[in-house]
């Protein structure tokens, strides 16, 4: 068995989610190859070659792959991936965008967002916003799978010494082109990889009040997240949303501030090790999953908490 892992990167840095995906590949067992498709992504390939457990890195360097457009990358992965037993990608916005296109090209069903490997052909994944866990078996010749990063502890980023091999295949479907992007800038840890996450909801009342959470987060070295209500109300940008349709996090500590705890929000954070809820409504559903609950006005509790930690 040989497994192909699609590297998640921005042409400069190998994203941490790749390490979790390699961890899932290691649980399946077999040789692990990593594909770096991009443009000028030499540093990413070097980083991928050092990842523990990786035996070969394939580099497809072409202008058509610069922005990971699925119309161009999917045919590449399908062409290379046909000979592998498994093709894995992280369940990031990129992995979710590309991999189903690969699966359809290979005429196999995909398994999305696995959280555990039962055997080489059987996997567990959450359905219904995490309210049920399905065990799915695949008899496809190539098993195409996206991996939920929080389900697997990352492998070491150093220690490996894989061979790096260039891939010549160039696919440019010509059906799509990159226009531009607007990336949110933040000095705080990345939400999906942070050890501590502080999240705010509708109870924050406005965007300005998030400064209380930022202050607390900076003191804790935490990332800041939000519920859909806070995003929809325009308090914070979309990419901060934690939940079924936003980001899935499982930090050591999750502090939910002014968040009621709707099913869709819990889907994104209920695998956190310790959950703290600060809410003035003692009936709020968030208290049913919180390890420590504090019924209090967040505008008093959060500044006090910041002082004490």
């Amino acid at each position, binding site marked *: 068995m040989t497994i192909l892992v699609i590297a998640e990167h921005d042409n400069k840095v190998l994203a941490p989610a790749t390490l979790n995906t390699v961890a899932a590949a290691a649980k399946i067992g077999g040789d692990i190859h990593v594909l770096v498709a991009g443009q000028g992504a030499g540093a990413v390939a070097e980083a991928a070659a050092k990842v523990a457990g990786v035996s070969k890195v394939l580099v497809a360097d072409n202008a058509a792959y610069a*922005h990971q457009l*699925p119309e161009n990358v*999917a045919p590449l992965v399908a062409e290379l991936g046909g000979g592998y037993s498994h093709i894995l990608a992280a369940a*990031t*916005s*990129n992995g*979710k*965008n*590309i991999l*189903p*296109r*690969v699966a*359809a090209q290979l*005429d196999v*069903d*995909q*398994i*999305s967002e696995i959280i555990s490997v039962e055997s080489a052909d059987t996997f567990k994944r959450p*359905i*219904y*916003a995490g*309210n*049920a*866990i*399905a*065990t*799915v*078996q*695949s*008899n*496809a010749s190539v098993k195409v799978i996206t991996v939920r990063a929080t389900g697997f502890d990352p492998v070491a980023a150093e220690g490996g010494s894989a061979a790096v091999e260039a891939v010549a295949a160039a696919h440019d*479907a010509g*059906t799509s082109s*990159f*226009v531009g*992007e*607007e*990336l949110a800038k933040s000095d705080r840890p990345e939400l999906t990889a942070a050890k501590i996450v502080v999240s705010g909801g509708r109870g924050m009342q406005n965007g300005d009040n998030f400064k209380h959470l930022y202050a607390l987060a900076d003191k*804790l070295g935490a990332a800041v997240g939000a519920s859909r209500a806070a*995003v*929809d109300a325009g308090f914070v*940008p*979309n*990419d901060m949303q934690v939940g*079924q*349709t936003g980001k899935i996090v499982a930090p050591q*500590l999750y502090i939910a501030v002014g968040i009621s705890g709707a*099913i*869709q929000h819990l889907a994104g954070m*209920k695998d956190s*090790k*310790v959950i703290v809820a600060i809410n003035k409504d003692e009936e709020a559903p968030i*208290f049913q*999953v919180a390890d*420590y609950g*504090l*019924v*209090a006005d967040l505008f008093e509790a959060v500044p006090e908490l910041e002082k*004490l*930690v």
Partner: protein
Amino acid sequence: MKVLVAVKRVVDYNVKVRVKADNSGVDLANVKMSMNPFCEIAVEEAVRLKEKGVATEIVVVSIGPATAQEQLRTALALGADRAILVESAEELTSLAVAKLLKAVVDKEQPQLVILGKQAIDSDNNQTGQMLAALTGYGQGTFASKVEVSGDSVAVTREIDGGAQTVSLKLPAIVTTDLRLNEPRYASLPNIMKAKKKPLESLTPEALGVSTASTNKTVKVGAPAARSAGIKVKSVAELVEKLKNEAKVI
């Protein structure tokens, strides 16, 4: 131009589902069903394109049991012109659905196909991308803005670090994210009118599509329950617990 919108009948998003005792699936007997929230956004976007004069006809399609007619009628009440139901009693995988949609696309020749980004039951997030692969069209997934101009469509997509805009040649596939629009409600007169709009029924056999799957669900279990927590009385007590009991700060 013609716009095709795919809609799915799913358990209502407010329902807390329960796993069946025999672990064969979740219990959907006597549970409220609705149109998948992302599909509502897809229908709304199509209707807005028609109101802007970009779209000339909106065809909605659903693949599922006969009862999915209810969701198609809802889409018709929201402004779709006609509906197609591909009737299948069994639960289909995303690939099977994408293949059936491909057959409908071949028949209808739409310029734009809009789907939701994921269904809230299976949480797969696959069908739109698979349909794009099968048709060879460009894909604009997780769309928060869609602008058609001439023979291309600019799609702003929600990505992990922010937003990205891509330009796709028409025909193209778009999947909707939550922030694309705010779906409208169907008015009573429109619900009445929708009953008279055409609804065509097809079968996978009639479309010549095999719905065989390479995946099999072996078991559906309940997620691990969290042990009950405690309520603390003060911030000081909270900090003390986090430091000494949970040891997370």
